[in-house]
């Protein structure tokens, strides 16, 4: 393997991996703070992609503005879903999971009925190729990596440096004590849901120029995110980041080395992690149902 090829595969892996990181960290945020295991997360990603497509292609808005607008659209939708559905069953993990499955079915089929089955795509925003040494790297992929890193840094700032982030961490630690300190837990739950799902929406917007947009794109993405959670664990954001990068790299390098068998390589890596670290690399086995 030459250095140029290695760089190329590395950038590919980083680009896909960072998208997984974005979506998975949204999933972990919603699970950690609002105690909802969100099976509809992939659908928010799909809706983010469709919203970006609609704003960019139909309304001719600038790409970056439309990503941000669609993020707010998805966040608003997630907050409404929280208030209408999950608020009534908060704290019950099983019922929340079941309700989110219902939500996922409704969104997916709703998108299929209203947008049709044909694939859609946006024209590339960044064209051109960047040469580093011998490697020719598409600017698009590098832009995706940089955007995702910037968003993750923003998320870090939100969680660690702002008052809202502090409230979220407090609620994650202990809901009742947080409520005793005067934190509006309902508000924090809804905001956590909105922020988590808007991360998925953002990811959908970012990949819109790269991949085709279909109503069932959320399912495949959700499968990948579950793998990220299995590898990294369900508790920490760090687990999400490491897991996302491992999955992205495995797919990128594995596809070059093994071809179609790379998925099986991925599954065997996941199996090994499950055998030796049942809770994931950064998680613990929790005994509560």
């Amino acid at each position: 393997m030459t250095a140029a090829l290695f760089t190329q595969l590395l950038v590919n892996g980083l680009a896909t991996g960072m998208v997984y990181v974005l979506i998975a960290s949204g999933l972990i945020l919603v699970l950690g703070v609002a105690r909802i295991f969100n099976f509809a997360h992939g659908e928010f990603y799909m809706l983010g992609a469709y919203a970006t497509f609609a704003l960019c292609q139909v309304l001719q808005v600038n790409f970056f503005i439309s990503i941000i607008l669609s993020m707010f659209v998805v966040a608003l939708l997630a907050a409404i879903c929280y208030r209408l559905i999950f608020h009534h069953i908060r704290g019950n993990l099983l019922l929340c999971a079941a309700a989110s499955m219902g939500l996922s079915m409704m969104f997916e089929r709703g998108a299929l009925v209203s947008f049709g089955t044909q694939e859609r795509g946006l024209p590339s925003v960044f064209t051109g190729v960047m040469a580093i040494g011998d490697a020719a790297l598409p600017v698009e992929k590098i832009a995706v990596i940089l955007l995702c890193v910037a968003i993750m840094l923003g998320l870090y700032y939100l969680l660690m440096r702002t008052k809202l982030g502090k409230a979220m961490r407090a609620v994650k630690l202990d809901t009742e004590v947080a409520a005793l300190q005067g934190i509006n837990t309902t508000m924090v739950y809804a905001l956590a849901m909105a922020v988590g799902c808007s991360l998925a929406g953002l990811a959908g917007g970012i990949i819109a120029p790269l991949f085709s947009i279909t109503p069932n794109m959320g399912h495949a993405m959700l499968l990948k995110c579950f793998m990220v959670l299995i590898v990294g664990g369900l508790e920490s954001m760090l687990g999400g980041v490491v897991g996302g990068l491992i999955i992205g790299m495995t797919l990128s390098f594995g596809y070059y080395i093994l071809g179609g068998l790379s998925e099986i390589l991925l599954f065997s890596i996941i199996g090994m992690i499950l055998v030796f670290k049942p809770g994931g690399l950064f998680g613990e086995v929790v005994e509560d149902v």
Partner: protein
Amino acid sequence: MKEVTVFILFGILILLLPLILKSPYQMHLIIMLCINIILAMSFAMLFSTGLITIGAAAFWAVGAYASTLFVMNLNISFWLALPLASVTTGVIALVLGSIIVRTPGVAFVVQTMVINMIVVQALGQIDFLGGWGGILGIPRPNPIGPIKFVSKTNSYYLILFLLLLTIVLFYALYSSRIGRAWRSIRLNPRLAQTLGISLFRYRLLAFIVASVSAGWAGSFYAHYFGTIEPGTFSVFKSIYIQIYSILGGLNFYIMGPIVGAFIMTLMPEFLRVGKEIEPILTGGILILLVIFLPGGILSIPERISFFPKMLQDASSSSRG
């Protein structure tokens, strides 16, 4: 006495159902209903130990494919393939289960779901297993003497026998020491462990029994339906199986799946909506159910009997 009469009448009705229902399509629905009940009961069995699975359809698929491959490649009789397929499912469940039952809660949900997706992918990708097109022309169960399993009526009696077998087996397990251990694990895992109940062993046992019953349902399905394809066994099916149990009532391990599967299997036929928007309705029903009736349909009588008591409490407290 009254209950016994009702029970006997109900039993006669079930036995004579083929005489009442004339059209083959209605019989097909009833047969699929029986399969769905077995699958939903396997979900309920894992739930009785506090585990939530989204992978019931994966073991259904394993049973169906194993039985098909045994019959078509080894040329053995269906009556041998059915137990063999169940054993195969059990062995696979033993291997997978010993890895995944150690992590209860959300992690288990995710792991079973990923297993289901992997099974569907593997069935689709590997040519030996038929690929995405599936396997066509699976032979019907071999005739026993004069009884041939070509007509829907005889297939109905076969699945009814399997269903009764599953119900009796599950009932025996639930009412034995094992069932009490399962329930104690669900109520409080830590306390159960201090009483000397091995969480790992009892959960693994539940996982294996549930998977084996899904396996024989799959074996019957393959030979009854004649064709199997990976799409049938997707995660969607597993979610539907979960809905059957939740709809009927999660605290009713045998009656809940029966009631839930009955409603969910026959309702689309009565509503006569297009296949297109059926998931939207199902999803909506699931959400409404979870919010307004989390105990399931079988909890309605309990709730109604609570009403007068609640009113009484309210009036007495306002007086006091």
